[in-house]
């Protein structure tokens, strides 16, 4: 029997595990190239194939990258950390155990500030971040069988586990996107979703207040989500599914009665689906890996990595708003990655006006970056070039339109902005002698308009200015030209 329950409040409670593939040159335990998308089984060796007698040797850079993320998340990085084997059978896991970290992760207990749409931030607690190896890939579209490609087997994977501090789909997405920005910012991962560099596993349940009581629904872990869209849909679907399941059975559909469940996600239906589990699925028989010595992270190592981190995205965004007087949107756009802001700061450091630089970066340059699917910094503009062009604007040596043209040329072919402007005749002309020629011509060629203008028609004055600019091919200093035109019309 179903009774109607008066829900006064539903609070989704979501925690997120994020797997990030680290952008090391080589795999975690062997020196095979860490590279996506090549022919199957081309980056393999006895170690990552689990041939008998092969042994793992830990990649120093993978450890350093993980510590860097841990420190950036405000985690404690303990002095002593070790490697454990997680035992389970799967064809893309050639050793049939995964080298991971069980009880002593590289980083624990941090806080990650994420931006909310309101412009405020929210602190999400990070439970732990540990380093483990990725599995290979099972290919399912072969005739009548599954194929195993081990190119990805043994690629370093950082698993970052949050506390269940997110309470909406928006917060989950905000956290995931901020994490993507952070790991790119730190230079530890390309975090390219198409290449599987980031995968999500949200834990979702609801706290439902009804009839003066709080009900908790069973916690569902959704496995292996490979895109922000899948993450968004899976969480949204779970919120609605759990709400209706609870409504159908308020006393039965509870955490206390049903505990934790795993569900899969179907990309086609955009729904989560029930997954049958093997009886012994969770008995991973973790134990310390005898092949790998422990890692001691001493003060010196920790400090040297911390020194590499620099300013983080949220802090930089705030600084841009405060010091450069940028709008939120502008500051946000400039802190999507570290290098673009670095370029801006470097141009400002040599004397350019911040606002002029920002306008240049967020104009045609941003559009080209979007077309090329890269960051603004990736366009290859040097700080000196940016500063030179910005200063030309400040000094009225070029107008805004021409500056864009010059910037495009800088992006395409490189070179000095001043020289490009000179060669292309884009330098702004303020010299009265040269301006006078264009103004006189415009007056001579448009007697009717001149007559109207002299009668006080302001609109026609604009038309005549347009003619002057046209004759100068955009090079005339508009202020000076306007002054001169008014003089000549006897205004």
């Amino acid at each position: 029997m179903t009774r109607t329950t008066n829900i006064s409040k539903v609070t989704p409670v979501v925690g997120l595990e994020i797997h990030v593939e680290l952008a090391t040159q080589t795999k975690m335990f062997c020196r095979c190239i860490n590279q996506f998308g090549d022919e199957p089984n081309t980056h393999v060796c006895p170690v990552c194939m689990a041939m008998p007698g092969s042994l793992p040797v830990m990649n120093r850079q993978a450890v350093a990258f993980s510590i860097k993320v841990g420190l950036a998340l405000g985690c404690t990085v303990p002095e002593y950390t070790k490697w454990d084997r997680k035992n389970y059978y799967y064809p893309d896991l050639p050793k049939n155990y995964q080298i991971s970290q069980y009880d002593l992760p590289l980083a624990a207990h941090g806080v990650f500030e994420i931006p909310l749409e309101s412009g405020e931030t929210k602190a999400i607690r990070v439970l732990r971040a540990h380093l483990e190896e990725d599995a290979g890939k099972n290919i399912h579209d072969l005739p009548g069988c599954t194929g195993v490609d081990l190119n990805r087997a043994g690629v370093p994977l950082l698993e970052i586990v949050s506390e269940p501090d997110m309470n909406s789909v928006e917060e989950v997405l905000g956290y995931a996107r901020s994490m993507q920005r952070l790991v790119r910012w730190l230079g530890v991962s390309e975090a390219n979703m198409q290449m599987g560099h980031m995968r999500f596993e949200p834990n979702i349940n609801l706290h439902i207040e009804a009839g003066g009581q709080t009900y908790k629904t069973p916690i569902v872990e959704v496995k292996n989500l490979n895109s922000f869209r899948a993450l968004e849909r899976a969480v949204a679907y779970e919120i609605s599914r759990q709400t209706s399941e609870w409504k159908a059975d308020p006393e039965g559909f509870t955490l206390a009665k049903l505990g934790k469940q795993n569900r899969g996600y179907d990309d086609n239906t955009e729904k989560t689906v029930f997954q049958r589990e093997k009886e012994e699925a969770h008995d991973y028989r973790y134990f310390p890996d005898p092949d790998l010595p422990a890692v001691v992270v001493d003060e010196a190592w920790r400090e040297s990595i911390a020194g590499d981190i620099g300013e983080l995205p949220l802090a930089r965004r705030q600084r841009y708003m405060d010091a450069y007087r940028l709008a939120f949107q502008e500051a946000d756009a400039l802190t999507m990655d570290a290098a673009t802001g670095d370029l801006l700061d470097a141009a400002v450091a040599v004397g350019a006006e911040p606002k002029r630089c920002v306008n240049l970066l967020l104009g045609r340059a941003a559009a080209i970056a979007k077309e090329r699917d890269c960051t603004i910094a990736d366009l290859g503009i040097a700080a000196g070039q940016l500063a030179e062009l910005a200063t030309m604007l400040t000094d009225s040596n070029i107008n805004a339109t021409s500056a864009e043209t010059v910037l495009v040329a800088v992006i395409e072919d490189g070179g000095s902005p001043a020289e490009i402007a000179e060669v292309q005749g884009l330098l702004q002309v303020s010299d009265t002698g040269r301006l006078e020629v264009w103004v006189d011509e415009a007056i001579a060629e448009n007697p009717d308009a001149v007559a109207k203008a002299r009668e006080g028609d302001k609109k026609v004055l604009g038309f005549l200015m347009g003619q002057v600019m046209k004759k100068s091919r955009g090079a005339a200093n508009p202020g000076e030209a306007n002054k001169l035109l008014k003089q000549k019309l006897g205004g």
Partner: protein
Amino acid sequence: MSAASDLTILTAAELAKAIATGEASATAAIEAYLAAIDARDGAIGAYNEVFADRARARATSVDAGEITGPLAGVPIAVKDNMCTTYGRTTCASTYLATFEAPYDCTAVANLEAAGAVVLGKTNMDEFAMGSSTENSSTRMTRNPWDTDRVPGGSSGGSAAAVAAHLCAAALGSDTGGSIRQPAALCGIVGLKPTYGRVSRYGLVAFGSSLDQIGPMTRDVADAALLTRIIAGHDDRDATSLSEDVPDYAADLASGAAGLRIGLPTEFYTDALGGEVRSVIDQAIETYRAAGAETVEVSLPHSRIDIDADGKLSSFAVAAYYIICTAECSSNLARFDGVHYGHRTEEKVEDIIELYSRSRAESLGEEVKRRIMLGNYALSSGYYDAYYNKALKVRRLIANDFAAAFKHCDVILCATTPTPAFRIGEKTDDPLEMYLADIYTNSLNLAGLPGMSLPGGLSSDGLPVGIQLIGPVLGEPTLFRAGRAFEAASGTSRLTSPVIEGQS
């Protein structure tokens, strides 16, 4: 006796010298050994595979001066759990029966870089699990002293090959006694080096925190020579030690005078009986007579007792078997029929059946038993009671040794509770077989070097080994003490009856 068979009488060092000085050719040496294998290995069964063509080719290169080094032209046998790019690496298992490794084991590569000629791969207990070589899927290996008896194990093929003069020297691997116990039973010298002294890269893992490769030789000088060559840091093995390898031959002739020999009370209990005890007692007297001092030391957590029903009892054995089975349950998980090795030919429903049937068909009983024991010891609910407990007891054992070595330079004790037992004698009782390692397990837990060398013969004419134990990186002292015993006792370079029978 022909001139060719004379060469098989030489130790590795002597043969290397004869070849280097031109007294003998490498080709003659190889031919002599190939002839010996033809003549005697049918009765012994030491080899799983002999690389006759390759060995001849290398010998030709040695004779042409193209291959040089301290072991140039010396034929060495290698246990079949060390990967080589030539021949197969089977671990005496059906699972790997056709496996051809695309890489070389570092220790074997080091030997060949020193000019040695790998003569073949020797039989063993499957995946090195056993103490008699009866757990081999390939053949029976017999003890050259009495072919009704086992050669010991798991490096039984290497021990028998050395004792029957079917190679100049051999490599074995030792996880809980697998070099020292067969060395003792076959009357040869066997050293398990300090953990990490020799790279494990290319050694098919059994118990990763316990496994070490070591030499099996006719005398202590050869053991020192081979150890020098196979030892050293390897950047492919994260557990290999970076300390420089000393010249182990340097102290060989220093004698026993001034050596402090520790006698652990707990190894000299009622459990040590009969003929082994009298050989050990004799060895103690020999050392004293040679000027060594003996001191009583204590290893409480390695104590060996005999319990009410006559079974040997030791905490170290319990801890050892928990740890080695736990590690092997995970190490051998990779043998699943997917990337290499045996796959069932029966039709299977799914991947789980493919795994379970392939493994069931191709792994032997003892291997299955140990994998299951290990999975039990690690499984949820039992981890703390078994595996973690064993790791703690391991520390207690290691601490005992560290304390004992404050009072002595080397420890002397038995290698095995008895001389070689009869084929089939212990195969029905796994636990009984495990207890054959009771004097050797604790060193592996503590990572210490240990060497077995011939102590004398039993009244049946079977060899009895004595075991010397050193502190971490104490190999130089082991070689010195071992050589001193050889010199004083005259028990070195024993000749097994199988060879005498030929002459």
